[in-house]
């Protein structure tokens, strides 16, 4: 993974920008800054960021509106960094195309992990890696196999479909709706308990301690993410 990736920090608070700037540079990223929505769209063309850290409470326009605008101009992954902690804000931002969401005040290590996950390419895409390993369990998306060491773990088609959705973007949150529409496709709204049961079964097969899941981790009210992927 190239540490020369560029991160655009969009936040109206100079202290936060300075803090993020320091943290990210320490981790080896190039950093660009913008203090408003208008400025963010201007800088976007010059800096060509790989990831945009976007605050929602901007002075000139709401950060949520900015998500589609940024996506139109850039392929950068958008990571929301906001004090708004309501589930519905998170889900709305993710539905609009943000890849993840971090609430203020945040843990810097957690933020960096999210940035890494946002930078990671899609697993199983053409020319990229086709498998990913988390806590010793390997998910091979081309062969459609899950292995612990040399031992294959048998999953039902539904279970595999769910875990594949998570493994495609390791470390990123995948919302309930994204999982449900990918796996059940039809009439998915009412299947949230189905999803919970499938996740429970997956954990029984994969996790060392299903009561304290380390691989398939829940993001409350939002979705799941695949954790424990080594770089």
């Amino acid at each position, binding site marked *: 993974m190239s540490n020369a990736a560029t991160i655009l920090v969009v936040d109206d*608070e100079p*202290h*936060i920008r300075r*803090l*993020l700037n*320091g*943290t990210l540079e*320490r981790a080896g990223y190039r950093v660009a800054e913008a203090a408003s929505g208008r400025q963010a769209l201007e800088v976007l063309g010059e800096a060509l960021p790989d990831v945009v850290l976007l605050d929602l*409470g901007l002075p000139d326009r709401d950060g949520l509106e900015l998500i589609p605008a940024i996506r139109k101009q850039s392929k950068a992954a958008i990571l929301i960094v906001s*004090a*708004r*902690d*309501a*589930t*519905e804000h998170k889900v709305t931002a993710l539905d609009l195309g943000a890849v993840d969401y971090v609430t*203020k*005040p*945040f*843990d*810097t*290590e957690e933020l960096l992990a999210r940035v890494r996950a946002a930078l990671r390419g899609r697993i199983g895409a053409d020319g990229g890696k086709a498998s990913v390993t988390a806590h010793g369990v390997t998910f091979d998306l081309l062969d459609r196999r899950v292995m612990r060491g040399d031992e294959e773990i048998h999953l*039902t088609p*539904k*279970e595999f479909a769910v875990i594949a959705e998570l493994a495609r973007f390791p470390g990123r949150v995948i919302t309930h709706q994204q999982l449900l529409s990918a796996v059940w496709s039809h009439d998915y709204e009412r*299947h*949230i*308990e*189905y999803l*919970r*049961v*499938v*996740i*429970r079964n997956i*954990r*029984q097969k994969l996790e060392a301690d*299903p*009561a*304290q*899941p380390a691989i398939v*981790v*829940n*993001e*409350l*009210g939002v979705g799941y993410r695949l954790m424990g992927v080594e770089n």
Partner: protein
Amino acid sequence: MKPPSDRPDPEAFLRAAAQEGRGRLKVFLGAAPGVGKTFEMLREGAERVRAGVDVAIGVVETHGRAETEALTRGHDVIPRRQVAYEGRTLPEMDIDAILARHPQLVLVDELAHTNAPGSRHPKRYQDVEELLAAGIDVYSTINIQHIESLNDVVASFTHVRVRETVPDRILETAEIEVVDLPPDELIERLKDGKVYVPEEATRALQHFFSKSNLSALRELALRRAAQAVDVQMLDYLRSHALAGNWAVGERLVVAVNELPSSEGLVRGAKRIADALRAPWTALHVETPREQQFGEEERRRLAAALNLASQLGASVVSVPADSALDGIKAYVAEARATQLIVGKSARSRLFELRHGSIVDRLVRETPGVAVHVLPMIGEAPKPAAKPKRVFGSPSSYAWTTLMVAAITAGGSGLFHILNLANVALLYLLPVMVAASLFGRWPALYAGVVSSLAYNFFFLPPTGTFSVNNPENVVTIIVLLGVAVATSHLSARVRAQADLAAGSARQNAALAGFLRQLGDAANEEELMQAVCAEIARLLDVRTTMLVPSPDGPELRAAYPPEDRLETMERAAAGWALDKGLPAGRGSDTLTASDWLFYPLKTSERTIAVIGLARDDARDTVRSDQIPLLMSLLDQATLALERMRLGEEMRGVAELRERDRLRAALLSSVSHDLRTPLTAILGSIAELKHKESNPLIDTIDVETQRLKRFVSNLLDMARVEAGALKLGIEPVDLTDAVASAVHDTRATLEPHPIDLQVSPGLPLVRVDPQLFHHCLINLLDNAGRYADPDTPITILAERSPGSLALSILDQGPGLPPGREREVFETFRRLEGSDRSKGGTGLGLAIVKGFAEAMGLEVEAANRGEPRGARFTLRFPEALLVREPEDFDE
């Protein structure tokens, strides 16, 4: 007026439900006095006493019989109240003493008894209803001839009519035990003087106690008891939705008129309706004929309608030209399936001329079963057109004058007119008289005209003899025209009167609604209702609403600021029971005011009181339909006004919530942003150097962060407007992320996780639930002894799922466990060294209750410590889907 609706099954269920919490009534039913009802009741009462039931005697008539007397001993007898009436004192059952004593079961003899004037209720069965409503079981006795719907039947063969009757509905929910004695034995007992017979009735009863009578009465009693069982069985079947075969969808209408036998007709209809288990309506058709009703007829009609309503019918009045038209129209509108009419003894001739109404009803109401019950007594007076139709003397004078004028004019013109044209002239006074004065003056005009024509114009003139047979025809034609014209114009006038009557009523209603529409608030509306009803019915009015201190006077016309105790009691009764009370009703008749309830489908929202200064009926029977419409409209208007006010309140509340949410969100942003900068900077500093001061800043800032988060949460709880996003949540996930987020606080404590992954999902708001868990874990971490484990335990039990967090530490002060959930409460004696905000547990309680969870705090046994439990009721648990993997 609404047609009666089907009586759907839920009603049976409601009846059963209403029964719960009410006392149960058991009635000992006898065919005649002397069969031993009271004895049997006392015997069973004694049995209940032996079974440990608290039994008291409300009233028992032993009539001095020793064996009965003996049975009352050992019972707790509630002393009777002495009521002074016309120089005598009458011992009456003391209902207030019974209610105060509140036994489980009370014995009340003679259900049909009429109370002394001035008692709370005129009838003892009403006392019994009140006792039942208070949850007291009642045993009572009754003879078959006192049952309302059987009163006629019994009278028809015994020729003894009792005036004290009990409505059938009282018996419908009662358990009935027939106290049976074969007729021979009863007659034997009578001869031995074992049957109490009041002296004045001895002779009448001699006939009553004939063997054939007693056999018939006995059969009637047994049949009535069997029917009661049927009804209760059907109710049971319906409320439990068992398959069964019962008549569904029958709707019965009985047409009632002013004849004396109408009451018998109503009772007959009640029997048929009961047999069919059908809802029924008593229909009264207002025809033009009614304008000629005297006081007596009006009273009889009102009595028949009242009886119907007491027997459980809905009562409907419709205006129409004729009874036939009214019945046909209503039967079609109400989709009735059964029609009951009385057949009066009319002459064959009458029926030939007018056709039998019954025949036409059968022909013209297809699909309706028409029952014809014989009506005893006279037929309605069909063409009885008294006084007014005969016309005033002046109308005859005017008619005479017109004929004279025509005669004079005719003589003047005779030289240019022929005889036939003169005859035509005479039609003029006939038609004028018919249209202006009615039938008799018209006939008079016909006769006088023909006489004048005959005398003055027909040869031989000057005499009343007629030579030419042609002229006889002319005279007959004149008379015929008189009859036909007057008949037509009389009908037109009657219809016009009727239309005018309806128009007046509609205008009254429209004016009423206009007045109500102008009211800007409830106060004005109530005042307008009072003023308008007072004006339209020429009475005084008051309006009272329920309040914690009894009925509260809200409006009156003319203004009135207080009511007597008796009136208050009647108003309170009407509010409470949703039934009319006071003068002219069944209850508290000593009140000068008559109170009608304003009822919505759920409750009585107010009562309106009516009073009149003179001795006439408060409301005339023909005004009752208008009053009912007025009350309906007033109820609607009041309800609408209240809904409107509620809506405005809701809108204000919503606006306040919006502002509060905006404020919270901005405060939350303003507090979190600096915290983010500080915490981030600390993390960076820690990377560069190790300094205990930095660690201190870190720990304290983390505490500040938790404090801010709790403050914001508490503000949300206190605002009372938590927005819930309920979804099925896996406890494993919830616990795992709460443990993850509190790892700093819990660091020194090992976590003992006993949450089985196989538990049902729970329906909660994930975020609120997360905050609950964080605060509980935080609390446990703070108060637990160093390095002791914190246990998180999920337990499934029938009906609920409990998630507990247990620590090992000082625990909670005994007896004050609940207090920990109060805001800013940190119980004394707890370890305070590790600062908490005092908000955490209050937030747990606020959030948990908002989601429907129960919170519990307790001390655990061994090892010592506190145990906090979140309990999920069964309704919040999600049944595992089974087809998820298909």
